[in-house]
């Protein structure tokens, strides 16, 4: 028994000896919180930006999934963390949407945005074998058969739901069927239980490439370069552009110089080839990156837009 203690003590002393006190920020691992479950878009972003940042900052960034309450649980954890710059978090447009209805446990303006990293427009997809091929077909069909088509969406109150409601107001009458789990949402369209799907292209790229789904329309003022054959919604005289964006943020009160260090490192990580490859695979807009101040304004504008839509 005694020998074991000596052994442990020896290891401890050895560790102290090896320990090098590094000066400057950061000198120990930074917790990278993902306020959503494993496997989703936010999680993928966390797991892509983490290793990329690791190379720049030279410390590890373990990803911690804290799902719950439309990312409110995770963000509350960030809010309560020490203001020493060792806790950063992924955040998504959903948080802004929820906050605008007062449904978020914290407020988005209580954080310092670090960067917008992904900006992806939303599409309306249809099963590849469907007789409806274009958005014109869809309009014609709904005119004749209102409330016959079903759209798979994430949940009520989401941007998806708002978009379907907007279309409904403009004469394109469809029913939205909520599926909180992305997998079930796609399966319901692949199994032809629902005709349409509202989604970002990156999340269903494998179905597009395998000719299982067909993009019908993109909810943007103009067409996307990589998918130039997909019409933009504005071409039909409709104006609704609720795009999904994901970025990083940090608790308010963290010293400005630390924020600057992080913001610079994030920009570098964003430009790294591995992260660019990831963005391309997710069908993100080429100008996804947005520096802190600009992103802050962008969020504020988006917040107002949501508030208006709810009225």
């Amino acid at each position, binding site marked *: 028994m005694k020998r074991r203690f000596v052994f442990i003590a020896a290891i401890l002393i050895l560790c102290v000896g090896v320990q090098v006190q590094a000066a400057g920020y950061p000198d120990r691992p930074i917790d990278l919180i993902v306020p959503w479950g494993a496997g989703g878009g936010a999680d993928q972003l966390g797991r892509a930006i983490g290793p990329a940042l690791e190379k720049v900052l030279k410390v590890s960034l373990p990803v911690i999934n804290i799902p719950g309450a439309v990312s409110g649980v995770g963000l509350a954890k960030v809010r309560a963390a020490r203001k020493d710059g060792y806790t950063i978090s992924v955040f998504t447009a959903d948080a802004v949407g929820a906050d605008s209805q007062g449904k978020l446990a914290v407020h988005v303006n209580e954080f310092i945005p670090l960067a917008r990293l992904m900006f992806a427009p939303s599409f309306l997809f249809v099963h590849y074998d469907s007789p409806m091929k274009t958005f014109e077909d869809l309009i014609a069909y709904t005119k004749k058969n209102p409330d016959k088509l079903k759209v798979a969406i994430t949940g009520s109150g989401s941007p998806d739901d708002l978009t379907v409601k907007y279309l409904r107001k403009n004469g394109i009458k469809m029913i939205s069927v909520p599926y909180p789990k992305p997998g079930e949402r796609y399966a*319901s369209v692949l199994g032809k239980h629902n005709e349409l799907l509202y989604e970002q292209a990156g999340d269903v790229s494998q179905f597009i490439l395998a000719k299982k789904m067909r993009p019908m329309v993109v909810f943007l003022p103009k067409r996307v370069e990589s998918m130039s054959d997909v019409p933009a919604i504005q071409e039909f005289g409709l104006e609704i552009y609720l795009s999904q964006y994901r970025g990083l943020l940090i608790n308010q009160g963290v010293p400005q110089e630390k924020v600057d260090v992080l913001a610079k490192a994030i920009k570098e990580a964003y430009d790294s080839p591995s992260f660019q490859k990831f963005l391309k695979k997710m069908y993100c807009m080429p100008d996804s990156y947005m520096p802190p101040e600009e992103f802050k304004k962008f969020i504020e504008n988006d917040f107002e837009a949501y508030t208006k839509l709810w009225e």
Partner: protein
Amino acid sequence: MDWLVTVMEMGVKIITLPNYFVFIFIGLFIGVVFGAIPGISGLMAIILLVPFTYPLDIIQAMLLLTSTYCGGVFGGSISSILLNTPGAPESVCTTFDGYPMTRKGLAAKALGTAIECSAIGGFLSAVVMTVACAPLASVALSFDSPEYFALVFMGLCVVTSISGKSLVNGVIALFIGLFLASVGVSPIQGVPRYDLGFPQLRAGIDFIIVMIGVFALGEIFVRFETLSREESKKIEGKVGTNLLTIKEFLALKWTILRSFVTGTFIGFLPGAGATIASFVSYGMARNLSDDPGKFGTGVLEGVAAPETANNAATGGAMIPLLTLGIPGGGATAVMISAFMIKGLQPGPLVFMTNPELIGSIFVGMIIANLLIIIFGFIAVRAFTQFLKVPYAILASGITLFCFLGAFAKRNVMYDVWVMLIFGIIGYFMKKYEYPVAPLVLGMVLGPLAEDKFLSSLISYQNDFTIFFTRPISGTMIMVAFCFLMYPLVMMVWKKRRSANNT
């Protein structure tokens, strides 16, 4: 078929390379150990392993994760049988007959049965996955919300088989579980329910936390109550593993076969998973047995059925993941993120672009399930040593892992407090003969049931008959009613017969 042969050849070629084969070993080891530690599950092992797959290539990563998955599902049976504390909901059923066997001094037999049945179930389902991946995937797609609801309903009706002495107590526990699952933001409308003003309650109550509480902590409290008299109660009989004799195996063959079919079938439906599979096959084994009364007192069928089914679900769950890129449960959802890191999207395309990957996964899972036999024996030998440890030390270790398991889920202390509260609730439930398993069953299946029920009605304009008129869902609802009615009918029939005799 030609395609399958070429793919399998590629797979075998890769797997036999030592720097690939070793990951099956590592994965199984980690899976079995994590699965066997109370309070921590194989799923958690998979989540925690993902960062370690960064430097590996995708085949190595997938071999590691799939064998961790297979090992973890088996490993859960060890703590269920020895300590009455399942690490994951899919091994809850194994406690019903596994733990009584341990108390009767038959731990060796129970563990041996668990090893063999897990290996058989897993192996057969891996073979089915390999041969019939594509056709089964299209069957999975034909399921719409009403079918899922029918399936979940079937899972809920098993409550009549797992309630032990008092059926009413079991049903009450089930309802409490279902209600607790509905606390928090509602799945469809996003409206907060029953949060009583607490923002934490709005996030809902996690069933893993509740399960760790009622089973692991509750068990510790129950044991402490009688500790001084018990001292360090040793397991009577030889601790180790005891294989089934040929005779016993033949007696179990229909149970195993039935559970394997149930497990694979329920496993491949996205979102349903191993938990329903193990509960339903336990219920089936009990209802179809000659003497349902002896279930719950430690019978071999009661261990064989859930263990075959939950391991059979592993192969099943891989089918929608590989063919459609749709995760069937927690473990496969994490695997998708491992794919993504490598720049791959699982789904129909991978079959064309990366046949060597698919082949390796197929071959890897078949081999991993066979290796469970070897690993099972080693692990069981190691873990049964813990039974010789005085219970007080064991209990403090279990509490540490309960904390770690509850905390690591979301990294918030709140979950740990919830676990403690449910530990105390679990103690009272055990003391007053309210079975805890229906509570967990309700909490696991509650959100799924509500979600599927409401979305069926939204899809079909509030037409309640939809559950009965669609052929697949109608059949399953019928089976569910059989589950529900069978014990009642048996009770009445027995009463009448005994009345006639006297």
